């Protein structure tokens, strides 16, 4: 058993690498990346000042500048190296400066460095202190030699560095963190709601199998299953938020404009008021599978021999159902608990787009449009990790609550 889960855990490593590599390659191969956009912007800018965009623009962007841009975005290295750098197992150029020999240069963290004539790099305030982590390269540009110093370090997602967003100019982690609360609130509310409703409905459906109630609730459940959440959201948004029908709920957003001025109690009310429709849209699609799982699982157990025996012994029906059958029926439901992790990233950009909620999904969607790779990668990493661990934890929970299950 322990071996099994250990193997599962170890197997997540190649899967993780595979996933991120696929996304990395596809995203980096996509045209319209930041480098091209930057170059185009610079060309346009140059063109506007000189009046003739196409000819003057070409001239205003020397190859050196392109080189520098490439280096800034890391495109001067082959794809696989870029991937390894991003992972954090290959040295990354953390800082880079153009310098002249024997001239002080202020670098990050307030230090100054100096390149000596013999190409050694020392602390400018303490010339005897040779700095190993700094390197220098010399380039010959039009007969003039220019020197560039750079510092290398291992820094990637494995060391917790997800990079900076290119559009927001902020660390990606910060951006995601800022949007996390909304997703978590949606996730938790949706989770509790769907579990309580689905378990109850599933039990009722099983107990009244083939009744009218079963038939009609099945119809509703299947309708909910077949309709994507965002589409349902769009319909209820138009029905309940616009002047054309019944403007009961607020149109989009997840809090009022004056949210920060409200008292604590009003804040909760306001949140709830804004959350009703998106939550319905968000939970609806998951309803069907959970309800049917519960129903079929209970039905399955109710037709087992041990239930027949229990009835034969003369135990009351309520006791048989709730104590004998339910305990076994709830197992597959409980095993889904691993996906509770999903609430961390409970974001559906389609729903967020419909209700104009500034969540993680929206952030990533816009990042894709803007080719803001660090955000896209960060989202991928989080979602892959959640999926991988979610399924392992589900199996673990299943094996813990059901003694009959043995993973090999």
């Amino acid at each position: 058993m322990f071996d099994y889960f250990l193997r599962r855990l170890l197997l997540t490593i190649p899967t993780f690498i595979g996933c991120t590599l696929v996304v990395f390659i596809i995203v980096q191969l996509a045209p319209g990346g930041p480098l091209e956009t930057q170059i185009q912007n610079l060309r346009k800018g140059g063109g506007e000042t000189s009046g003739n965009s196409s000819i003057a623009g070409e001239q205003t962007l020397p190859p050196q500048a392109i080189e520098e841009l490439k280096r800034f975005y890391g495109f001067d290295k082959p794809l696989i190296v870029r991937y390894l750098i991003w992972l954090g197992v290959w040295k990354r150029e953390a800082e880079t400066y153009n310098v002249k020999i024997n001239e002080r240069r202020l670098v990050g963290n307030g230090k100054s460095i100096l390149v000596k004539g013999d190409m050694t790099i020392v602390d400018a305030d303490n010339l005897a202190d040779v700095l190993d982590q700094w390197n220098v390269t010399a380039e010959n540009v039009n007969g003039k030699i220019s020197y560039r110093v750079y510092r290398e370090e291992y820094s990637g997602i494995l060391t917790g560095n997800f990079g900076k967003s290119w559009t927001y100019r902020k660390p990606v982690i910060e951006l995601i963190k800022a949007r996390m609360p909304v997703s978590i609130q949606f996730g938790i509310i949706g989770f509790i709601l769907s579990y309580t409703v689905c378990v109850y409905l599933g039990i009722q459906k099983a107990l009244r199998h083939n009744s009218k109630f079963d038939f009609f609730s099945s119809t509703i459940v299947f309708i909910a299953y077949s309709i994507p959440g965002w589409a349902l959201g769009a319909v209820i948004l138009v029905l309940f938020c616009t002047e054309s029908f019944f403007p009961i709920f607020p149109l989009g957003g997840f809090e009022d404009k004056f949210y920060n001025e409200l008292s604590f109690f009003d804040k909760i009310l306001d949140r709830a008021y804004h959350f009703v429709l998106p939550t319905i849209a968000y939970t609806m699609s998951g309803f069907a599978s959970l309800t049917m799982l519960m129903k079929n699982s209970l039905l399955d157990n109710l037709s087992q021999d041990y239930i027949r025996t229990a009835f034969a012994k003369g135990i009351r029906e309520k006791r048989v159902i709730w104590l004998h059958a339910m305990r076994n029926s709830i197992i597959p439901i409980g095993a889904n608990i691993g996906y509770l992790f999903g609430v961390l990233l409970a974001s559906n950009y389609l729903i967020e787009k419909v209700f104009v909620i500034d969540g993680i999904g929206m952030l990533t969607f816009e990042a894709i449009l803007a080719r803001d790779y660090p955000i896209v990668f960060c989202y991928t990493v989080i979602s892959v990790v959640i999926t991988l661990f979610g399924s392992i934890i589900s199996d673990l929970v299943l094996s813990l609550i059901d003694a009959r299950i043995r993973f090999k």
Partner: protein
Amino acid sequence: MLESDLSNIVFNKIKLQQDKNMSEDKSINNAVVLSINQRRWRKFKTLKRGYYSLIILMSLYFLSFFLPILVNNKALVVKYNNSYYFPAFRDLLDIPLIGAVGGSSFTSGETLGQIGNASECRYRELQQQFKNSNSDNFVLMPLYPYNPFEGTDVKDGEKFMPPLSSINGSSIRLLGTDNNARDVFSRMAYGFQVSISFALFVAILEYLIGVPLGAAMGYFGGKFDLTMQRFIEIWHSLPFLFLVMILVSIFDSTFFLLVAVLTLFAWLGPAAQMRAQFLREKSRDYVAAAISIGVPTWQILIKHILPNSLVPIITFFPFAVVGGISALVSLDFLGFGLPAPTPSWGQMVSVGLEHVTDGYWWLVLVPLSAMFFTLILVTFIGEGIREAFDPKVFSRLR
């Protein structure tokens, strides 16, 4: 063959119950003669919800191929100076991939007496013109005389027309117009055909890839299975819609590119199911027997195991179609779907939501109602098929 044995028993039971009114001889006879698939079909027919959904959906899809003569701005028949023209029927023969079999439907306005109109004839105006002129010339328009692409009838620059409105006595706009003054009913109707065709293409393609791969994984096992499983796990964990969006933005979106990209991610479902089935079936005695008498592997796979493994993937098919439709509408909604003038439900919704405060509600409700209707029909069919194939009958002691 446990499953089919079980279902035999169950279906016999059902059969017996159904045929209680018939003479006993007949019912026994029937139960013996019917093959398992015939019995499944009979059971499916008894599940009214699924059965009627199938009939409705099939007839609607069949009808949708005749849309050019039902919903079109070109005339069915034009009689002008004693010669006849059938532009709408030429549209009907303009088959995707094959091309216009009956020649181009283009007829300039001048040929039909619209003076000064060298471009496409405006048949609705022509109809009025002929009516007023009192000659024996006539124009017979299709049932609903607007096509999904034309956006000409604009009143005072206002492009959005609410449902059930019309300008200057022209034919009524059943469901209004969109931001380009295109007819919403017409776009919805053509969008139905696009959506179903798309979903069918994706579903069939994903089966063509997923079934053989899954079968090979399950039957041969070993290293091939292991590597493929890792591959599938990787593929499965990818944020799929994001990747589709990136891929679609790399290449210029076309119908078949979109089909290909979605298939790229959709084949996992049938592959996983087939793998599980083949893994289970290969340890059965009948396979061992087939191997021992020297049946070639491909024959064992196709003739022996495959027929016994089809149940889960057949029942999954309608749900694959549901997935295809939803994915297409979602991508269209995000702007990563079919190329621009294609009538699509998702695109209408995105326009409607952009103008949500302006009260163009029909742009959201019409396509989504059409989508809900379609999806519900397909789901009901799927549910019916699943039940017809399901040998399980729950019995409960009271």
